[in-house]
């Protein structure tokens, strides 16, 4: 049996692809090495077998030269592939591929990165199954078949990085399946390239651009090569330096590995260091819990990614280590305190689901010298990946420095003997749906909007402000500890612990007479700012008389006196009269509630803003003692 490339044909009237859509989507944002390492490890981490063993991922970097390179390329049937690549050079991505080919010829060297994982599911599934690991990783675009709704990746977009980081847009797979295939024996080998749509030399045949490396069964026109199995696959794998141990998992080979945005080509050692560090930076929770092992192999030497090697992440693992000994007040360096953040998951559109969920915040007072990632909160859910480091530097003026971990979903009870409950699973699903394709934050996504009923937005957008508020309570400087001045003065100005939660009693300064939340964000579609908020008096004896909302332009160092006009403003609160008066010649939003109103919510938009410079929401509230009527 011979292994060769085959390209799917399409009709001349079909859509043409200048490049792969998913690849394009993933290349936006941050196509440094970070995206690659995060996506690759997430794939393996999600496919971990349900046993006590960790998923093990080894990155193997090889630069093939001279005869070795020639033999490798010939095993790859590169001539046949190159015939197609040559026909696809009238697009931007086609040109880049041509440049890569030239570079390989000039350098007489090709860099190959093989990612070998063990104790994972492998490429299960029939060649043409509707939904399987195989079709999701190798065949389909924008389909994901990851188990359940809570895997790290849930878009099927992440795998596009594999092709994005291959200069030739060419990736090979060799997999040992965790469940025996009914027809064939492991391993299973197949290759995949994603070229732009191109025509044959005579112009008669249009190739859609998707190419497959495998065995061609029969002579059917337009049929695509399929997986090679068993001993045949072993033989080809050896020629392609893609042999793998006989344990379940997948080896993925990125041919002509490169970092798309790198100005200079990093040498293998540097690359290895960056990969191990990023593995720890983004997956320390999975590594710490023994669910994931990562190593990099260069020139036959293996380097394990360990938390010991990167002690800057130890303050975060210490939060988990010392959770059971947590304290109420962060008095000593190294102390860990915890707080709970509630997350009301709304029902799904169909009416099921929904829960009064909770996330746990662990905060550890920094030891001397622990500067890196200081005052950051690592957001983690059950997948064991850090979704985001939320920077909360100077959350309060003069705050104690800290490191914090926010544990959500199935990760919530980590560090205790508790097991995740039903509500935790509901939260896990919700947070997964709140991650955009890059899985790097929890925000309002289309998936959320399509899956959940009203209230999802408040729930997801409230997480950060709740974290901030809880942090303030824990890390604010303790002004009561020292001498507090004359008692009489102390009574008049209640500063310190009582007001730390952002709520205070009636004798506090006017700036603290109300509490609430506000949000403002730029809407790229309408090129205006959208804002919303809710305010209420801190004290039940008070009511809100009026709320004035203005939009303040920021400058490099501080706010300016420039204002952006408010276009309109509305309120859900009953009985509120709304107006748009001018203040200093600029339109602002004003809400005047009916007597007795204690809580008021609003949302609105700015006039069109072509400058799009930083703009903040200023909310001025008149509060007075409640009128008896």
């Amino acid at each position, binding site marked *: 049996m011979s292994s060769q490339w085959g390209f799917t044909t399409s009709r001349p009237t079909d859509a043409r692809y200048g490049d792969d859509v998913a690849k394009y989507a993933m290349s936006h944002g941050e196509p440094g090495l970070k995206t690659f390492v995060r996506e690759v490890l997430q794939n393996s981490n999600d496919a971990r077998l349900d046993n006590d063993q960790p998923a093990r991922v080894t990155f193997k970097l090889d630069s093939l030269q001279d005869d070795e390179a020639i033999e490798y390329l010939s095993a790859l049937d590169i001539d046949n592939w190159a015939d197609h690549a040559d026909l696809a050079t009238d697009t931007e991505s086609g040109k880049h591929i041509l440049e890569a080919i030239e570079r390989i010829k000039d350098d007489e060297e090709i860099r190959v990165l093989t990612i070998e994982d063990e104790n994972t599911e492998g490429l299960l599934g029939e060649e043409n199954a509707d939904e399987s690991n195989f079709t999701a990783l190798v065949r389909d675009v924008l389909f994901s078949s990851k188990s359940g709704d809570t895997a790290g990746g849930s878009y099927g977009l992440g795998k596009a990085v594999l092709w994005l980081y291959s200069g030739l847009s060419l990736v090979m797979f060799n997999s040992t399946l965790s469940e025996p295939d009914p027809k064939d024996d492991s391993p299973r080998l197949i290759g995949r390239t994603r070229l732009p749509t191109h025509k044959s030399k005579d112009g008669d045949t249009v190739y859609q651009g998707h190419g497959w490396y495998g065995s061609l069964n029969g002579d059917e026109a337009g049929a695509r090569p399929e997986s090679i199995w068993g001993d045949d696959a072993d033989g080809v794998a050896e020629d392609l330096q893609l042999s793998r141990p006989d344990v379940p998992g997948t080896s993925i080979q990125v041919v002509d590995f490169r970092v798309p945005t790198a100005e200079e080509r990093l040498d293998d050692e540097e690359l290895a260091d960056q990969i191990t560090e990023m593995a720890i930076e983004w997956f320390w929770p999975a590594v710490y819990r023994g669910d994931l092992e990562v190593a990099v192999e260069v020139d036959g030497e293996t380097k394990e990614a360990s938390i010991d090697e990167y002690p800057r992440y130890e303050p975060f693992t210490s939060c988990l280590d010392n959770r059971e000994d947590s304290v109420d007040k962060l008095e000593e360096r190294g102390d860990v305190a915890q707080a709970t953040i509630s997350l009301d998951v709304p029902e799904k559109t169909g009416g099921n689901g929904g829960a009064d969920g909770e996330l746990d915040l662990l905060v550890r007072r920094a030891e001397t010298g622990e500067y890196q990632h200081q005052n950051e909160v690592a957001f983690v859910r059950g997948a064991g990946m850090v979704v985001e480091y939320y920077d909360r530097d100077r959350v309060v003026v003069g705050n104690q420095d800290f490191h914090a971990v926010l544990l959500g979903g199935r990760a919530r009870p980590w560090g205790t003997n508790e097991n995740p409950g039903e509500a935790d699973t509901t939260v896990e699903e919700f947070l997964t749906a709140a991650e955009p394709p890059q899985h790097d934050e929890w925000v309002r996504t289309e998936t959320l909007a399509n899956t959940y009923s009203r209230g999802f937005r408040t729930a997801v957008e409230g997480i950060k402000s709740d974290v901030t508020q809880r942090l303030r309570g824990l890390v604010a400087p303790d002004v009561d500890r020292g001498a507090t001045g004359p008692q009489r003065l102390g009574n008049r100005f209640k500063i310190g612990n009582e007001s730390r939660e952002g709520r205070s009693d009636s004798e506090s300064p006017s700036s603290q007479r109300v509490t609430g939340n506000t949000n403002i964000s730029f809407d790229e579609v309408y090129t205006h700012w959208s804002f919303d908020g809710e305010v209420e008096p801190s004290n039940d004896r008070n009511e809100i008389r009026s709320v004035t909302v203005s939009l303040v332009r920021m400058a*490099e*160092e501080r706010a300016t006196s420039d204002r952006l006009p408010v276009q309109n403003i509305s309120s859900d609160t009953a009985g509120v009269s709304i107006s748009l008066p001018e203040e200093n*010649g600029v339109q602002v939003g004003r809400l005047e509630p009916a007597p007795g109103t204690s809580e008021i919510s609003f949302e609105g938009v700015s006039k069109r803003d072509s*400058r799009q*410079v930083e703009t903040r929401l200023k909310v001025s509230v008149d509060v007075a003692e409640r009128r008896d009527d």
Partner: protein
Amino acid sequence: MVDNRFLADERELTEDDLGPYLQPLGRSLDLSPIDERIKEIRADDEIEAQSSLIDAELAPTLHRTLDLTRNEAADTGLWHYLCIVRFPEFVHYRWDHVYDPESPGNMKEKFLKAGTDAYSNALHRIWWGAELTYEDGESGEVEDRDYSRTKRVLGFQELANDILDHNFARYVPVTHACGDLLCHDMLNDIKEEGTYDDPPSNSNIVSRTTTLLREELTVRRVEMMEEDDIVETIEDLRDVVMRREAGWS
């Protein structure tokens, strides 16, 4: 020690008074050219006391004579010494109008502030104003430096305030572009061309354009901008301001 009597010019502080607090700079500088230049400025009938022209006229001599590294210039003690002990009469001549015995802070900072605040201490601000605006001559020698931009900036109080008192001034390409594009000569030339029907006053143009620039820099990192880009950005903002489309508030 720097009390109201000192600020009101009713008593002096000498090197002996401050002896215990003085530290040597480590090299000696001949300050007599500065004395000479101050004398000339005070004798000049066209320069009034307390005018910003004083800064413009003193800047080249002060900067050439105090040929300091930026590191040395960041030492606040040096400027405190120069203002309090060596040139207090100059500080009074330039700034006596800001002295208010009820709130002496404004006058005090003319003697005492310095360091990272580039625009307060009477001499420190002139030195930094020059440092951020001069142009090296071909020879690279101190004598060959071109201070014409320095004089344009420091001679136009609004421009000096709006540039030197803000963070972007620390990046020389911006300081230079603002000095060139927003000085009186340039603005008057543009007004004479008659492109704009009803342009605002030069001071307003400077104040608005630099405010818009500071707003712009909330979303752009100035050190990442090419010099052409900086010039174009400032020209565009100036154009908006001169057309009075900038949202005055």
